[in-house]
């Protein structure tokens, strides 16, 4: 076991998690808000008008799951949670880019908005900004090579 300086006794009890601290806390809160918003929206769409646009509403549900996984894994310590966060944020970035591009290129196929339509236009482009900030944060807090 590594010896820690006596001047930092509280560091000993803390697990090696640097993601849920400092700016990471704000990032996690924004992810949590999107997880809640996307889950509620997808749940509402699927419960009330699923047959209108099954694909769009399934995409909404998928986005909601991605946000939930990202929120939880960012808040959890450990290398495994780091990998899950990285995967979730990359899926999120791919999702917002692909769905964003498709929704503009083929507006007929996406008549009903998802969180990622128009690169997250309906949410102030936060869905586009969030994975970029997430990746920057993950890069800064990446675990040391084993």
């Amino acid at each position, binding site marked *: 076991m590594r010896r820690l300086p006596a001047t930092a006794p509280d560091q000993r009890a803390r697990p090696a998690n640097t993601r849920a601290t*400092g*700016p990471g*806390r*704000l990032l996690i*809160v924004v992810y949590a*808000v999107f997880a*809640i918003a996307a889950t509620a929206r997808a749940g*509402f769409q699927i419960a009330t008008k699923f047959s209108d646009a099954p694909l769009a509403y399934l995409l909404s549900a998928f986005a909601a799951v991605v946000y939930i996984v990202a929120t939880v894994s960012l808040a959890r310590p450990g290398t495994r949670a780091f990998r899950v966060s990285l995967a979730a944020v990359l899926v999120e970035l791919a999702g917002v880019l692909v769905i964003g591009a498709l929704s503009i290129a083929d507006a007929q196929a996406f008549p009903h908005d998802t969180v990622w339509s128009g690169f997250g236009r309906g949410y102030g482009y936060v869905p586009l900004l969030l994975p970029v900030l997430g990746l920057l944060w993950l890069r800064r807090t990446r675990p040391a090579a084993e």
Partner: protein
Amino acid sequence: MDGYFFAVLIVGLISTVICAGAAVLKKNPNDITILSVAAVELTLAVYLIGSVIRVIAGEHIAGEPWEFWGYMATALIIPVGAVYWALLERTRWSNFVLAAVGVIALVMAARMNQIWY
């Protein structure tokens, strides 16, 4: 947009400015920033009580009632969760967390207004 929305708008924006300002000045969460978030919660609680009274008095919600109450319940939980999350780590970044509450509350109040009318 009714009086409740404008109340949340004003209190929410003041709270966001106070908390973001404190974060920029590198202050940790303190009584002022936490009380400003408490003021947002109080405003939302007044919105809740007022809305319950209006429904009892026979007013009709134009949109889906359960969507309105869902937004209301979520909006009421967010300030509490943010304060809890901020107190777990008292750094200036937690003031940015608290600053997010006011903006979220006003967006949700705007949505609640849309559903109601």
